[in-house]
C-alpha cells in the first residue's frame, strides 16, 4: 500500500499505478462509468466517470477530471457528489441518449443493461432532443451473437476486447463522426473462439446472446446457481440461467485465478446439448420406455445374476461423485472398474496427472498470463480454449511462444517458432530438445538450428511454460515434456490440457490400477456379463469403437447412464437418462487438480437423477451397504473436503506415485509407403457434449483431408482432389485441402472421420487419390 485517497470523505487505500476509478470500485464506492473495464483498462472514451479533484492550493478552484485516467496519489481529495461532476455526468448521458432508441421494453439487455442503470443513476429523466435519430443497418454475425447497432454508445469496449485482448481481426470500429460502426467488413459469423464475450462486455444491447434470444426470458426470472463449465479441463466458473424447467443461457462467473471475466464460446453455447431434441429423458429397458423404478429393478436383477462377472466404466466428463460411487460399487461386487475407454488415453491422462502431482503444482490461468516463453504441444485452442486466451495475454506482454503441432492450430499466428511434427516423431523431437538443453556447449550439434533456437529461448526465459494437449500425446511424450521442465530448472512450469472436465478426477480414481484393457478383454472373452457405463461412449470411440461394439455384442446386459444420445446409449439394454450438469450438483477436478463444486440451477419436469443418485439407488436395491458419495470420497482421498459451489475450490490432496511406474509406449506400427499418420484436427467447438449444441455446430469446419503442400507434391495430389482413406474399420472419400501447418506424412482429420475409419490420433491409415 502506497497511500490513501479520500473520496467524499471515505479514506481508501490504493496500490501504486492504480487509477481513481479502479481504487473506488475496489472499495465499493460507486463512480458511474462505461468504457473502463478491469481487463481492458482505461481509454477515456465515454467521459462518464467525471469527478471533482481538489487542488493542493486552497486558492485554486477544484477541477473536473476523468476518474479512469487520473492516477491515485497520496492525500488526493476526490468528490463524486460535487455538483460540477454531477452535471458533467448528466450531460454525457444526455448526449449518449440522443441517438439511443427508446426500446428498453423489447431489448434483450433490459434488466442487466449498464446504460439503463447509468441513465437512471445520473441522467435526465426526459429527452430534450427532438431531431432525427441516427440509424444503422445491422449485420448478421452468425448463429451466436445478435447485432443491434442503433444501441451503441461508442465506448469501444467491444473492439478493445475483440482485437486488443483476444487478438481477433474480424470485428472492428469503422467510419467516423457520429457514424462510428462496430462490426465486420461484411456480414458473416464472428471468427474468434471468444466472440461470445461481446455479449457481456458491451454495456448496452448491441451484442446480445443469439441463442438466449430464441427462447428468451427476462433475466430477473432466471434461476441461477454457481456452476462449473463441463466442456473441458480448464474448469471455468459459470452461471447457468434457467426458467420453466429449461436451460436458457450460460454466462461467466468470475474466478480470480481461472477465467476472471470471460469464458470461451464452447462454454457459453455448448449448453444447448441439454435441450437437444434427441436427449434421452425416460428410462428404457430392451428398447421400451419404462418407469425409473422398473428400470432399477431390471438393472438390479441383471447385476445380481452377473455376480462378480461385472464391469463398470466411469468417465472423464462424469463428476467425481458419480465416478467414485461406481468404483465403490464395482469394488464391492468384486468387478472391474475403469474411468477410460481407451487404454492409450488412460495411460496419457494418468501419466500427466502423476507428473503434475510430482511437480510443484501447475500454473493457474492468471499465472500463465505472466510467463515469458512457452513451449506448446498440440492445439490448445481446441482442447482448452481459455488456456489459449491466457497465452494470448502472455504474448501481448512479450512472451515468446513456440508451437509444435501435427496440424493447424490458431496459436501458431502468435508464435515465434512453429514446427509441424508428425505424431510419431514428437517423442524423438522432444528428446533432441532435451539433449540440446542439457548438453555441454562443446558437444552441441550445430546442424539443427531451429532446435537450438527453441532450446536457447526456453533456457533463457525467466519463467518458461511447458504445456501439452494430452489427447494428442502419447504417455512417453508427456513424460518427455515433464523431463524438459525438470531440465529447465525450478522456474519452469509444467501444465497439461486434459481430455475432459473431470479427467483429473477420473485419473486420480484409477491412478494405481489401469484396467481399461482388462475390462475390454474380459468382455471379449466372456468373463464379463454385465457392463455399467456412466457418462461415456466407448462404442463411439475413434480408435476402439468397433472393438467395443463387437465386444459388447457378447454381453448379457449393457446398462448405460447418460444425458446425451450416443452410440452407446443406442445399444443399451437398460438406459438411465441422468441429469445434465446444470440440473444437478457435483464436483469436477480441473487441469490444476482443483476440485470445484457446482450446484443445481434448476430441475426439469422429468425425473432425472444424477449418476451418483442412480448408483446409490442401485446399491439400495441390491441390499448392499455402501457409504454415500462424500464418505466414499473422503475414504479414497484422505483429507478431502467437498468444495462448496461458489468458492475458489480446493486442490485435491496429492498422492504422488513414483514416476517410474509411468509406462511409456506408443503403439507403433510398421511403416509402409502407402501409410499416413492420422492426426486429430479439431476446433474450439469440438467436444462430446457440445457436439449436441446445434448453433455452435453450424460453425464446424467442413470435413476435409488436410495435408501439407510438400506431402501433396510427393504423392502427386492436388488441392481439392478427392482421396480415398482406408482405416481398419472403414473407408471414406474426402476432398484434399492443402495446409502448410500439417506435418509431413500426416493427414489431419476430424473426429467424425477418425471414428468412421476406426483410427485414433497417430494411427496409420492408407490414402490414395480417387482416379
Amino acid at each position, binding site marked *: 500500500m502506497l497511500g490513501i485517497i479520500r473520496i467524499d470523505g471515505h479514506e481508501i487505500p490504493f496500490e501504486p499505478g492504480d487509477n481513481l476509478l479502479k481504487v473506488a470500485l475496489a472499495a465499493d464506492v460507486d463512480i458511474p462509468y462505461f468504457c473502463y473495464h478491469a481487463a481492458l483498462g482505461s481509454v477515456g472514451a465515454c467521459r462518464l466517470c467525471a469527478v471533482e479533484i481538489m487542488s493542493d492550493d486552497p486558492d485554486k478552484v477544484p477541477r473536473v477530471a476523468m476518474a479512469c485516467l487520473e492516477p491515485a496519489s497520496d492525500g488526493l481529495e476526490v468528490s463524486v457528489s460535487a455538483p460540477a461532476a454531477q452535471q458533467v455526468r448528466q450531460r454525457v448521458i444526455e448526449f449518449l441518449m440522443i441517438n439511443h432508441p427508446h426500446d428498453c421494453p423489447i431489448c434483450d439487455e433490459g434488466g442487466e443493461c449498464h446504460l439503463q442503470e447509468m441513465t437512471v443513476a445520473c441522467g435526465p429523466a426526459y429527452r430534450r432532443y427532438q431531431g432525427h435519430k441516427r440509424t444503422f443497418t445491422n449485420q448478421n454475425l452468425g448463429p451466436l451473437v445478435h447485432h443491434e447497432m442503433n444501441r451503441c454508445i461508442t465506448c469501444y469496449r467491444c473492439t478493445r476486447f475483440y482485437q486488443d485482448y483476444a487478438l481477433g*481481426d*474480424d470485428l*472492428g470500429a*469503422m*467510419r*467516423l463522426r457520429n457514424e462510428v*460502426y462496430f462490426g465486420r*467488413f*461484411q456480414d458473416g459469423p464472428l471468427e474468434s473462439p471468444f466472440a461470445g464475450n461481446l455479449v457481456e462486455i458491451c454495456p448496452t444491447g448491441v451484442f446480445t446472446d443469439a441463442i438466449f434470444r430464441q427462447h428468451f426470458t427476462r433475466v430477473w426470472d432466471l434461476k441461477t446457481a454457481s456452476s462449473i463449465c463441463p466442456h473441458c479441463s480448464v474448469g471455468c466458473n459459470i452461471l447457468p440461467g434457467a426458467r420453466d424447467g429449461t436451460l436458457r443461457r450460460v454466462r461467466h462467473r468470475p474466478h480470480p485465478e481461472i477465467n476472471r471475466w470471460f469464458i470461451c464460446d464452447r462454454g457459453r453455447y455448448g449448453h444447448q446439448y441439454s435441450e437437444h431434441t434427441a436427449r434421452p429423458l425416460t428410462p428404457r429397458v430392451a428398447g421400451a420406455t419404462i418407469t425409473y423404478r422398473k428400470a432399477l429393478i431390471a438393472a438390479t436383477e441383471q447385476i445380481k445374476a452377473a455376480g462378480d462377472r461385472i464391469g463398470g466404466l466411469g468417465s472423464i466428463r462424469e463428476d467425481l461423485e458419480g465416478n467414485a460411487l461406481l468404483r465403490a460399487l464395482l469394488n464391492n461386487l468384486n468387478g472391474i472398474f475403469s474411468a477410460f475407454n481407451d487404454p492409450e488415453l488412460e495411460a496419457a491422462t494418468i501419466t500427466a496427472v502423476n507428473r503434475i502431482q510430482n511437480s510443484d503444482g501447475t500454473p493457474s490461468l492468471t499465472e500463465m498470463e505472466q510467463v515469458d516463453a512457452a513451449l506448446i504441444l498440440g492445439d490448445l485452442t481446441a482442447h482448452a480454449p481459455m488456456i489459449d486466451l491466457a497465452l494470448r495475454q502472455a504474448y501481448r506482454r512479450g512472451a515468446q511462444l513456440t508451437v509444435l503441432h501435427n496440424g493447424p492450430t490458431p496459436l501458431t499466428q502468435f508464435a515465434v517458432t512453429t514446427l509441424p511434427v508428425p505424431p510419431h516423431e514428437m517423442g524423438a523431437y522432444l528428446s533432441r530438445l532435451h539433449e540440446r538443453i542439457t548438453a555441454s556447449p562443446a558437444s552441441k550439434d550445430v546442424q539443427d538450428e531451429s532446435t537450438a533456437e527453441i532450446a536457447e529461448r526456453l533456457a533463457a526465459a525467466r519463467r518458461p511454460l511447458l504445456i501439452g494437449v494430452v489427447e494428442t500425446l502419447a504417455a512417453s511424450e508427456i513424460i518427455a515434456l515433464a523431463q524438459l521442465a525438470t531440465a529447465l530448472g525450478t522456474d519452469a512450469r509444467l501444465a497439461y490440457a486434459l481430455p475432459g472436465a473431470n479427467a483429473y478426477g477420473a485419473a486420480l480414481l484409477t491412478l494405481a490400477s489401469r484396467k481399461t484393457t482388462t475390462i475390454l478383454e474380459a468382455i471379449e472373452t466372456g468373463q464379463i456379463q454385465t457392463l455399467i457405463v456412466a457418462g461415456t461412449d466407448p462404442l463411439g470411440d475413434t480408435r476402439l469403437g468397433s472393438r467395443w461394439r463387437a465386444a459388447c455384442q457378447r454381453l448379457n446386459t449393457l446398462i448405460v447412464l447418460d444425458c446425451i444420445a450416443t452410440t452407446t446409449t443406442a445399444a443399451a439394454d437398460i438406459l438411465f437418462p441422468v441429469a445434465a450438469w446444470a440440473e444437478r450438483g457435483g464436483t469436477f477436478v480441473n487441469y490444476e487438480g482443483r476440485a470445484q463444486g457446482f450446484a443445481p440451477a434448476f430441475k426439469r419436469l422429468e425425473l432425472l437423477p444424477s449418476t451418483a443418485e442412480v448408483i446409490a439407488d442401485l446399491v439400495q436395491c441390491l441390499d448392499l451397504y455402501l457409504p454415500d458419495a462424500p464418505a466414499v470420497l473422503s475414504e479414497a482421498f484422505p483429507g478431502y473436503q467437498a468444495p462448496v459451489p461458489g468458492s475458489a475450490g480446493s486442490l485435491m490432496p496429492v498422492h504422488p506415485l513414483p514416476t517410474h511406474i509411468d509406462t511409456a509406449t506408443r503403439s507403433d506400427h510398421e511403416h509402409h509407403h502407402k501409410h499416413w499418420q492420422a492426426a486429430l484436427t479439431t476446433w474450439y467447438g469440438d467436444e462430446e457434449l457440445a457436439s449436441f449444441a446445434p448453433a455452435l455446430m453450424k460453425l464446424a469446419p467442413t470435413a476435409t483431408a488436410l495435408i501439407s503442400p510438400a506431402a501433396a507434391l510427393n504423392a502427386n495430389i492436388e488441392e481439392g482432389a478427392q482421396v480415398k482413406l482406408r482405416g481398419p474399420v472403414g473407408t471414406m472419400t474426402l476432398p484434399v485441402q492443402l495446409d502448410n501447418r500439417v506435418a509431413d506424412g500426416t493427414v489431419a482429420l476430424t473426429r467424425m472421420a477418425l471414428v468412421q475409419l476406426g483410427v485414433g490420433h497417430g494411427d496409420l491409415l492408407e490414402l490414395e487419390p480417387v482416379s
Partner: protein
Amino acid sequence: MNTKHNRQDLHSFLSQHPSIHPERRAAAVPIMQALQKERGYLNDAAIEEVAHLTGLSTTEVEELATFYTLIYRYPVGRHVVQICDSVCCSIRGADELLVAAEKYSGVPLGAVTPNGALSVLPSICLGLCDRAPAALVDGEGLGPLNKVGLEALLRSLGEED
C-alpha cells in the same frame, strides 16, 4: 486509364510497400491512395486487394479506409467538394451551406451528379478553422465560404466535363 500496363505498374508498386513499411497498417495508406488514384474509389474488391497485399484482415483495412476522409468507399464525381461541418464551421453557418449545396448540385450529399462531374460531401474539421466555414475543393482549401460563392463554385464545377 485502365490499361494493362498501368495495372502492372501499380501492382509492382503495391507489392513493394509492405516491405518498406514495418507497420502493416502504415503500408495500407499509400496502397489505398494508389488504388483510389487508378479507380476513383475503393470498392469491396479493392479492400480485399489491400488486405491481401498488406496481410491485414479485410475488417482492419475497412477500419482504415472508412476513417480517412480522403479515401472514398463509394464512387465520387470528377470534382469533390468536402464542406466542413465541425464546431467552428458549424457555428459559422456550415449547416446551411450543406443544405444549399444539395439544392445547387441537384443531388443529395454523397451522391454524384448525373453527368459524373461533382460530389459534395460533409467533412470533419479540415484544419482551416481560421477560414470557417471552410471546404476542400479537389484537395485545395477554400474559405470563408458563403452561399453565393458556393453556388457559383458548384455550378461551374458541375458543368465541367
